[in-house]
């Protein structure tokens, strides 16, 4: 364990303070300093979000869960699965790629890879639950809202995120939050999900200049 590992910034007192697992190696000016959520914590948070969605909307009618690529998509699928387990009713799941709606498009040099947007459902008059891994400046969500509205006129759009790390630049707020993590601007929150990264883990890293 590196000597400068940060203390656990979470307020989850039940959790045994544990060492930073160094499977994620420091690289190119990124130093990993703490695990914010482990597999069980992620599972419980996603389950709780699934319950909250059903509770707040008084059921599952008209709910469509839409994940933002990439890591919002597996989270959306998990949420839909938990809702189906509890309510016995399948929930439609979609995927949104916001690359072409980014507001920094003319400023970033190389055009980034474009993934597929996949929304089969007619979203008009539905309740859309947008899902992303980390809520930070809010710019991704702004782009996602613009793209969604090109698909139809939902009755409501709600936002679920696994981690809210603060530093909003737009008036955007999440309806369902897995974990609030106060961070500094030069920190990074790295969400790892089994479907993409082979395992579930949320790490806190720091950019080193």
């Amino acid at each position, binding site marked *: 364990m590196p000597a400068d590992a940060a203390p656990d910034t979470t307020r989850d007192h039940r959790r045994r303070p544990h060492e930073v697992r160094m499977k994620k190696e420091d690289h190119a000016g990124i130093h990993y300093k703490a695990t914010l959520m482990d597999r069980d914590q992620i599972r419980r948070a996603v389950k709780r979000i699934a319950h909250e969605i059903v509770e707040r909307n008084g059921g599952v009618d008209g709910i469509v869960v839409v994940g933002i690529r990439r890591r919002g998509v597996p989270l959306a699928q998990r949420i839909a699965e938990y809702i189906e387990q509890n309510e016995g009713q399948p929930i439609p799941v979609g995927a949104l790629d916001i690359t072409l709606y980014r507001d920094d*498009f003319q400023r970033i040099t190389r*055009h980034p890879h474009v993934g597929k*947007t996949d929304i089969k459902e007619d979203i008009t008059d539905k309740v859309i639950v947008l899902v992303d891994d980390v809520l930070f400046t809010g710019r991704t969500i702004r782009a996602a809202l613009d793209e969604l509205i*090109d*698909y139809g006129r939902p009755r409501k759009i709600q936002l679920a995120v696994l981690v809210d790390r603060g530093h909003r630049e737009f008036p955007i707020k999440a309806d369902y939050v897995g974990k609030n993590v106060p961070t500094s601007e030069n920190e990074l929150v790295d969400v790892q999900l089994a479907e993409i990264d082979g395992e579930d883990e949320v790490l806190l890293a720091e950019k080193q200049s």
Partner: protein
Amino acid sequence: MTQSRHLLGLEGMSAEDLIRYLDTAESFKEISERPVKKVPALRGITVANLFFEPSTRTRISFELAEKRLSADSVNFSASGSSVSKGETLRDTAENIEAMKVDMIVIRHGASGAPHFLASLLDGSVVNAGDGSHEHPTQGLLDMFTLRERWGSFEGKKVVIVGDVAHSRVARSNIHGLVTMGVEVVVCGPPTLMPPEVERFGVRVETDLKKAVEGADAINVLRIQRERQKAGMFPSLDEYARVWGINTDVLKNAQKNCIVMHPGPMNRGIEIAQDVADGERSVILDQVTNGVAVRMAVLYLVSGAAALELGETQTAEQKAREGKQVA
């Protein structure tokens, strides 16, 4: 290899670059299925479509691709322009660029015209067909259609039938497919076969039935009636009989062999009526895919142009800073 800011041809393009175009097109295809068929990706970018030769499909396809990416586009066709007053290609292009156009899509009767513009202009150049040289976006959309049907290019065989010598569609298809490891056979009247075409990595077959044996796809080229007047083949009737693709010829190909045509078709000459409209025909899929492929091309090319511009600006800034220090 890194993405180029031009698309001039498929010759010499790496498999990695080809796949990048095809994969990106796959993501763009869905946009044309949305209620609002438009994304803001190329907002603020101006594209000039310079068509020195007539075209329906390619011109409309490029225009739709530009509009669906939110680019602004202007159209130019040779008739009714200053070309008829004798203005040179160079002057026409430089004048259009002087009006701050970011990208030029050009179709021209002279092979190499897009390359000439690319060497001259600061903006991006996309080849929409040059003489009998290349038609890279058609090559890419044909490959996209094949991959969509097949899943992968591995172990597949494509037969290109007709006027290979004058066909830019054939050349772009050959370069792209050979790079992806597809077996390519060309077949047609010997008078319409380019000399030493084997050097492109294809096999020449003069018997159509033999050529299509085991074929997974047949790409039927348009026969230009002028070629008959030039004495390249005796009559259209005879061409249809010997080189036309009909259900009888298809019996020799794979059971699920698909038939492609870049359009415009001469029904009853190079392709039989029932084949053109039959279940093996993917001709309209090609047209649909063309828009997605052209969106991908415009997107990737403009991204590379922005990157180059950024690098030049950084270099200039560094040079300026260097001077200040000195």
